[in-house]
């Protein structure tokens, strides 16, 4: 399970400083912020704007453009199920439905107990051994109902 730190302005400053020497540092900074705190908190927006000498609106615009950046913390585990064409061709639709049914929530939602966030993902590059999924960064291919159940049990533990 991923461990995230509680928000701290001081910690955020050190994370930002780590990438200050790069050309075009905003994306690496946002990734590092999310890796540290589990999401991109609102409080980081003015800090980044000031640091990079751009407007808050510009930073906000970047944060909201990319599917990866979370506004809110996710559930304790994140299960991403591939919904792109190769996985659909290999029976992915039924598996996505099965996951929704088992977890009692739709793709893009978090279970009521806050344990699992389940999301669609569009291709993991594992299309020759489809269908595929990713649980907290661990990739799984040749998914079938049995393997998916194992993943879900792991996510719910």
């Amino acid at each position, binding site marked *: 399970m991923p461990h995230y730190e509680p928000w701290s302005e001081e910690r955020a400053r050190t994370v930002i400083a780590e990438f200050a020497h790069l050309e075009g*540092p905003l994306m690496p900074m*946002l*990734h590092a912020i999310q890796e540290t705190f589990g999401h991109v908190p609102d409080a980081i927006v003015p800090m980044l704007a000031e640091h990079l000498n751009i407007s808050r609106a*510009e930073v906000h615009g970047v944060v909201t453009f990319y599917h990866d950046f979370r506004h809110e913390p996710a559930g304790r585990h994140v299960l991403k199920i591939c919904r792109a064409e190769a996985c659909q061709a290999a029976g992915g639709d039924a598996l996505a439905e099965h996951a929704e049914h088992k977890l009692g929530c739709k793709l893009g939602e978090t279970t009521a107990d806050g344990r699992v966030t389940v999301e669609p993902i569009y*291709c*993991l590059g594992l*299309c020759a*051994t489809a269908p*595929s999924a990713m649980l907290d960064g661990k*990739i799984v291919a040749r998914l079938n109902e049995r393997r998916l159940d194992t993943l879900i049990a792991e996510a719910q533990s």
Partner: protein
Amino acid sequence: MSIRIYVPKDACAIACGADDVVAAIQAAALARREPVEIVRNGSRGMLWLEPMVEVVTPEGRIAYGPVEEADVEGLFEAGFLAGGAHALRIGKPEEHPFLAKQTRLTFARCGIIDPASYSDYVAMGGYKGLERALALGPAEIIEEVKKSGLRGRGGAGFPTAIKWKTVADAQGDRKYIVCNADEGDSGTFADRMIMEGDPFELIEGMTIAGIAVGATKGYVYTRSEYPHAIAAMEKAIEVARAHGMLGVNIAGSAYSFDMEVRMGAGAYVCGEETALLDSLEGKRGTVRAKPPLPAHKGLFQKPTVINNVLSLTAVPHILADGGEKYANFGMGRSRGTMPIQIAGNVRYGGLFETAFGIPLGELINDIGGGTASGKPVKAAQVGGPLGAYVPTWQFDLPFDYEAFAAKDALIGHGGIVVFDETADMPKMARFAMEFCSVESCGKCTPCRIGSTRGVELMDRIMAGERVEANLATLTDLCQTMKLGSLCALGGFTPYPVLSALNHFPEEFGAPPRLEAAE
């Protein structure tokens, strides 16, 4: 002496349990006091056999696969350390028909070497291209690439030499080489496999490009869905630097070149070259209007070469063996080899590098072995989510840019996704529109709004509402998207939609096509 065993570290192998297999082999070897050395190679591309374990024997490397953790004990009992017989024994990988039929240039080393080993790379011909490039100098390098006929492998098929020449001629205090490793198309994984299995080849290709155009800095922009590729690339960059092959005065020459890996954040459109550049600069990934071309005003407004991984990794071979030799492969204006990716509902899915011109049906039925489900093949989507659905009666199409274009289809990045007879074509058409609406950068109306309208139209058609009128509107909408979109996301989404409709009209509630039986 310890016995050397290869277990791939390719993401596909890992996703099929390779790490557990490694642990099981180590445990079983320890219990038997058999000293083994495990090397984590890339994948050979026979992905249905992953994890494919290879043991080095006096006769050569002997493969077993697909190996699961639970098979390991049995393999030891069968004497696999000496190449013993077992139900999973494949024999020598290079003699397997799937590999024996290929022409491997870009993938010549992938799956054979340790991707982190500089000496492995050099032992198999690595850095021969750079050596010759240094001897030739910039103008001659570009001439060699021109002779090869290399066209961009990212999708558009633009001649690489022309792009390089433009950047070489452009004025700038700084120039960049950007490698497009965003590989967002479903059904494609060649870029990922090279980055994981032979990352030095990309480093060498980018370095040669840098010398050719006068760029000193390179970026590899890849997707966040590819953590294993990112790690392998970063490791190789570090090793190359330590060997003086990146940094100042590469290989003792007067040229300097260094590079970095940057990660996207889950936006498909960032594979489009100008959106990618904006993303690298730390902006929203929106598409830029052209001109100016990236070759004139690219990254940070500086002259920039932006090429796909497969374009750049073809370059070391072109330089090492000469452009003419490369151009001898292929057909028409499609020269050289293409690493084709066979995926979806297919029995023998994997990476098949071959000269252009091979018929699509041969790739799917003979090499791919038909569907994994055992049901008849219905169609294949070629070229990713913006590519057309090609029905079985067009499977004689040769793999060639122009031949595909003549049938309103595209090769794109060389991905083939096979569907069996259960494929629901209206649903796939709806998906194409939905994908476009989710991934649209929002810059132009036909794409941003049109794709949402397209989803609504498909919903009505699938519900049987005023089908004829709605199909007419859909066709009209597709025409508007084709003509009115700034980039291929909005402009090409009509291809999967209209190909599904034109080849399988009865599924949409339209009259069947007359020549369907041709």
